[in-house]
C-alpha cells in the first residue's frame, strides 16, 4: 500500500494513501469533534464538525471522508473553522432539548464533549424548544427524540452491521425525524433483533437502555 506524507497544521505525518484525513489528524495528535463519524460505519459527512481547510480547495472539507493524498497541506484551527465549529454545536443545542443536568447521558455524551471541545459557554442562537416525543414501546430500550441529533449512526449500524434496517429518517429540514419500521412504535417493529447496537453507537442520550429492566431478564421475542 502506498504511503503518503502530508502536513497537518505544522506537523508532517505519513499515512496510507487514500485513508480518511481523520487518520492523518490522529497521527499528528490533532483531535477534532466528530458526531456523525463512527470508525465501523460508512461515512456520511453530515455533522460538519471535522471540516479542515485544505490548501488549494475552494471550501473546507470534512476530514472523515476526504482521502489523504501526497503533499496535502491542511489546517484545522483557523479562526473561521473554529467559529464555524462552535456555531454548529450551538445550533445543535438550540435545535433539540438538551438539559444536560437531567439527562441520563450526562458525563457520557459526545455532544457534551463537542461543546467542551469548541469552548461553548453560551448558545448565541435562540433555543427552539421543539415539542418532541419519547418512544418507550421497546421492552429494553428507550428512544428520546428530544436528545436526537440526527447523526444517523443508528440507521447505519442497523443497516450495515446488524442487517435489520429498523431505522430510517422521515421528513426533511427541521422536521427530520428518526423513525422505526414504517414510522411505528419501536416495540412493534418485527425486524428489530433487540441487539442494542443502535444504543451502543448513539452519541447522546437519545437511545438508551431502560433502567427499569433488570439485567438478565431480557424478554425473549
Amino acid at each position: 500500500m502506498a504511503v503518503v506524507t502530508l502536513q497537518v497544521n505544522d506537523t508532517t505525518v505519513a499515512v496510507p494513501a487514500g485513508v480518511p484525513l481523520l487518520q492523518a489528524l490522529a497521527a499528528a495528535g490533532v483531535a477534532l469533534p466528530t458526531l456523525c463519524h463512527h470508525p465501523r460505519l460508512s461515512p456520511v459527512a453530515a455533522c460538519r464538525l471535522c471540516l479542515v481547510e485544505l490548501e488549494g480547495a475552494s471550501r473546507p472539507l470534512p476530514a472523515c471522508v476526504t482521502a489523504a493524498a501526497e503533499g496535502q497541506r491542511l489546517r484545522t484551527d483557523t479562526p473561521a473553522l473554529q467559529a464555524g465549529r462552535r456555531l454548529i454545536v450551538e445550533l445543535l443545542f438550540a435545535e433539540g432539548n438538551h438539559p444536560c443536568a437531567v439527562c441520563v447521558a450526562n458525563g457520557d455524551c459526545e455532544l457534551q464533549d463537542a461543546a467542551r471541545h469548541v469552548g461553548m459557554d453560551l448558545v448565541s442562537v435562540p433555543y427552539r424548544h421543539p415539542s418532541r416525543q419519547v418512544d418507550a414501546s421497546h421492552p429494553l430500550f428507550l428512544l428520546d427524540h428530544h436528545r436526537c441529533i440526527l447523526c444517523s449512526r443508528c440507521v447505519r449500524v442497523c443497516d450495515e452491521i446488524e442487517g435489520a434496517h429498523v431505522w430510517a429518517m422521515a421528513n426533511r429540514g427541521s422536521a427530520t425525524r428518526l423513525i422505526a419500521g414504517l414510522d411505528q412504535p419501536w416495540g412493534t417493529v418485527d425486524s428489530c433483533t433487540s441487539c442494542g447496537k443502535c444504543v451502543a453507537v448513539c452519541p447522546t442520550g437519545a437511545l438508551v437502555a431502560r433502567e427499569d429492566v433488570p439485567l438478565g431478564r431480557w424478554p425473549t421475542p
Partner: protein
Amino acid sequence: MRDGETAPVQLRLCDASGCRAAGAGALAAALGAALEGGGGQGPRPRLKPVGCLRLCSHGPLLALDHGGASALYGGLTAEQVPTLLAIACNHPGGHDGDRDPRRRALEAHRLDSHHPFFALQHPLVLETCGLVDPTDLDDALAHGAYRQLQRLLATATPAQVRAEVRRSGLRGRGGAGYPTGLKWDTVALQPPAPRLVVANGDEGDPGAFMDRSVLEGDPHRLLEGLAIAAYAVGARHGYIYVRAEYPLAIERLLRAVVQAMERGLLGQADPATGFAFVPELRVGAGAYVCGEETALLASIAGGRGIPRQRPPFPAQAGLAGCPTLINNIETLAALPALLRMGGEAYAAIGPAACPGTKVFSVSGSVVRTGLVEVPMGISLRTVVQTMAGGVPGGIGADGGIKAVQTGGPSGGCLPAALLDTPIDYEGLRALGSSLGSGGLVVLDHSCAMPELARHFMAFCAGESCGKCIPCRAGTVQLADLLERLMQRRATAADLDLIEQLAAVVQRTSLCGLGQTAPNPLVSTLRHFRHEYSERLLPDEPWLS
C-alpha cells in the same frame, strides 16, 4: 420553416402550460368547432398545437401563418374566432374589412412581432419551440429533429463530438456554469466500465420555466441532445428526471420517447457504429433538493433524495458506481443547434468566457412576462427594460425597477443602478448575485428586500434535506431571525448574528442548497443594507 407561397395557412396555437392556464383550451375548442363546421370555402387552415410562443403574459397566444407571413395574436377568446378564421380563409369581413368593428376588435389583439421582446431574441435552444407540434414526430423530423445525431453517428467519433463541444465553450445551464466539454471528457476518459447519462429536469427554482418550455415545446430536441451526449461519452442508457409538477412536459416527453423508439431513431443499434441508446423517464416527488446532482442520483436509484459529499463526483462514480454524466435540460437541448453550426460559430456568440445563448424566464413586476432566449453578455437592462418593458406604469430611467432577482433561492438581487451589467456567470457572481438557471424576477419599489430574503430563506429551510447541521438548523434560525427583523423586534446584535450564521451556513454546508441558501440574504445586505438597519430596534445601551 417557411416555404413561401406554398406554405399552408396554419394557426399555431400555444398549447404550453402558461397559455393553457390563460384559456388556450377553450380557444382551441372554439377553433376546432369552427373549423369542423366551417363550410366549404377554400382550403381550411390547419390548427396546430405548439410550444411556448414566448410572451406568456399576453396569452393565450396564437400565430396565424398566411402566405409566408405570420401574425401573432394575444388574449383571444372564442368571440374572435369567426373573424380570425375569416382572415385566415381570405374572406374580407363585409364590404370594407377595415371598418368592420369585429375586425378592429381582432386587430386590438394583434401583437407587434417587431417589438424588441421578439426582435432581440436569438433562438437556438428554442429554435423549434413554437413551430413544431410537440406531439408529432413527423413534424419534428420535418424541422430537422435527429439530423445532427444521425450525421454525427455517420461521420464523427465520440472524441470528435467532445472536441466540438469543447471548442464551443458551452457551459452547463443548470446553474453552476461548469464547462460541458470538460465534464464530458471526465466521464468519457474514466477507466472502462458502463457509463450513464442523466438529463436534469428537476427545475425547482421558483420563477424558472426554461426547461419546462423545452420539454413542452419540442421534446425530441432534448432526446436528440441526450443521445448525442450518450454517444460522446460512451453511454448506452440514460435517465431523464422531470419534476412531478410538470405533468404536460412528462406526457409529451413520454410520448416522444415512445415515438422515437418505435421509429428506430433511438433504442436500435446504429448500423455503422453499433450505438444504441435507451432513455428512461423518472418523475420526481416534489423535493427541490433533488435537482442537486448527488440527490438526483439517489432519487433515481430509488432512495431518499439526499445529497452526499463530493468527491467522488458523479462523473467519476455516479449511478451504481458508474461514471455518470449529468447535464441540465437546456444544456442538452442546445446541442443540436450547436453541432449544426459547429463549435467555432457557437463560440462566436456572446462573450468568449461564456458563449452561446441562454434562455431566461422573465417574471415579476414587468409589462411582458415570458420566455426569452438571448445571447450571453447582453445587459440585464436590455432584457428586463427594453424587452420586457419594465414595471407596468413605471417611470424614470430605470422604468420603475427596484432590483432584479436572478438565480432563485440560490441567487441574489442586483439593484437598478447595476442594470447595465452584462449577463454572464462571473460578472453576476462578482456583484454578489448569480446567474443561476435562468429565472429573472423583476422587483418594483413596493418590494422590501429583507422580506424577500426572509421568503427565500424560509423556502430553503423547508427544502433542506435535513442531513447536515448547518443547513438544517441554520436556515430555520436565519428565517426566524429575519421574521423577527421584519416585525421590527430584532436588534443590531441579531443582525450581527444573522451575518455570522449566513457565513457559516455558506462555508460549511454539505451541498449546494445550504451553501447558496444565504445568497439572497447576503446580496440584499450588500446592496440594500439600509433596509435592514432601518428595521432594527434602537440600541439599548444599558443592556450592553
